[in-house]
């Protein structure tokens, strides 16, 4: 459980995080979404006690991070995967971290294996690819087997196979009852994993809701229609106030009319429908809708 209340951080004259409040609950993956520079990383640094807030509080398991007794066994964090001394090997890097956290050093082998870095564990990390750095960062976060995880852009730089592995890992960690906060600017990635989403834009939380709710409210509410008479149906729906975009293979993408109204209008005009699918809307649409409108004001 992560609790954030009224968190504010200024760097010079710039407000990076502006009175942010939210809870991150265990058992689900919570997506922390926002464009680059919107305050995601700063919020995570504030939760971890690395930066001092100008106002507000952040607690993990009810305690400010700096006061946790066994931080690495309570919280696993991946902030900046490349923030590693280039001349150390992955194994040595994880070893000092394990020692600092009072974690048995045998855990190092387990997490190296878990993220698939065992073969490269004795190489200096300077030569690692971005994807390998991300795996090392994930290994570091998992080292203490913590009930809470904060991961800043964990799939950045991973290949599709790596992305799929991380997605499965996140879902498994949440299913085990852990609190998982994952930031991303890649909306599609969150659509696959996050159940709850926090959307941040210019330092403010603009949405704190379930993914389903978010896409329903802000996803555009369009309906996909398939018919053997697309031209005639398009004219009928346009007449009923719909906004119709022609598609391929006798499909129409209709906005501004609910699915029921489209079905009624088609029946009244004697047009057969082969498909009538309300689209949930993509998270990307919802995100642009929110951040574009909600924050500019």
């Amino acid at each position, binding site marked *: 459980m992560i609790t954030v209340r009224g968190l504010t951080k200024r760097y010079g004259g710039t407000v990076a995080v502006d009175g942010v409040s939210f809870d991150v609950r265990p058992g689900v993956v919570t997506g922390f979404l926002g464009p680059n520079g919107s305050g995601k990383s700063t919020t995570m*640094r504030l939760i*971890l*006690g*690395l*930066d*001092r807030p100008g106002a507000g509080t952040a607690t993990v398991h009810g305690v400010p*991070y*700096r*006061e*946790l*007794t*066994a*931080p*690495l*066994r*309570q*919280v696993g*964090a991946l*902030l*900046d995967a*490349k*923030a*590693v*001394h*280039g*001349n*150390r*090997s992955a194994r*040595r890097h994880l*070893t*000092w*971290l394990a*020692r*600092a*956290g*009072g974690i048995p050093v045998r855990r190092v082998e387990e997490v190296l294996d878990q993220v698939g870095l065992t073969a490269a564990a004795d190489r200096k990390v300077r030569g690692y690819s971005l994807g390998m750095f991300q795996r090392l960062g994930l290994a*570091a976060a998992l080292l203490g*087997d*913590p*009930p809470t995880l904060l991961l800043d852009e964990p799939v950045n730089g991973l290949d599709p196979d790596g992305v799929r592995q991380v997605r499965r890992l996140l879902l498994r960690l949440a299913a085990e009852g852990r609190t998982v906060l994952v930031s991303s600017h890649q909306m599609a990635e969150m659509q696959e994993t996050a159940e709850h989403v926090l959307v941040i834009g210019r330092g403010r939380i603009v949405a704190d809701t379930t993914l389903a709710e978010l896409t329903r409210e802000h996803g555009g509410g369009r309906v996909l229609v398939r018919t053997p008479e697309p031209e005639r149906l398009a004219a009928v729906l346009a007449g009923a106030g719909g906004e119709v975009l022609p598609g391929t293979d006798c499909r129409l993408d209709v906005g501004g009319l609910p699915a029921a109204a489209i079905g009624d209008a088609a029946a009244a005009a004697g047009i057969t429908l082969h498909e009538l699918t309300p689209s949930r809307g993509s998270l990307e649409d919802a995100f642009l809708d929110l951040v574009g409108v909600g924050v500019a004001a």
Partner: protein
Amino acid sequence: MTDLRDPGFAATLRSEWTKFASLRSVRVTLGLGIVLGIAATGLLGWAVLATWDEWPAEERAAFAVLDTAVVGTLVTGVLFLVLGVTTVSSEYSSRMAGLTFTATPRRERVLAAKVLVVAAATLVATVVAVAGMIALALLVFSGLDRPGPEAGRVVRVVLGIGVNAALSSVLAVSLTFVLRSAAGSVAALLGLSFGPAVAGPFLPGWWAEHGQRYLLGPAMDSLTLPSFPDSPPGLGTGAAALVVAAWLAVFLAAALATLRRRDV
């Protein structure tokens, strides 16, 4: 169930030691400091031997083997100061400090562990280097018909220079936590070490008489080194210990205050 016991300061100390010992650059700097320090002593010894026949009688009479032997500590000292500085500055240049303070949010533990690790390594390496310098000097000057130093004085010089170097490394680590920059810290430390000697002649006479001995460098020398016949009056051991402790406390407190207040 998560084990929530505090891993304690011992965990931080082991962690910092692992970091320190796992870098090849650290091992190379320690080895290089020892080798170059002994080599500097050897070079001076060779110069003395080559010109010995031309030395005036009174200079020959005043020649002290031990004082000449430890000349290599200048090289060793500077290299080990840089080592202390980079041990901290590399945390910031690699941005790894974020992970260090995530693993150990208690800033005072990280400061204390770094200070202990660097000071212990500096002490051991300096003692080895100085012992090597003296052994080499005794060998080189054995034919000069000068009295060898007493064993007690040798031990005092070796340990004194070692402790001096270790205390200097405490300064290097603390100052770098404040400045976070290798170049800035090295410049500041060299200024602290050599500044008084450079600026001294331009200051009023009473400064050299009464003020200078309270500076960190001269006070550390009074505490750890046997006095040389022509050195300015220093502090007694007790007073020197107090002055050195006060200086180090100031630097450590500045480092801790910086760590607690400033963003990582």
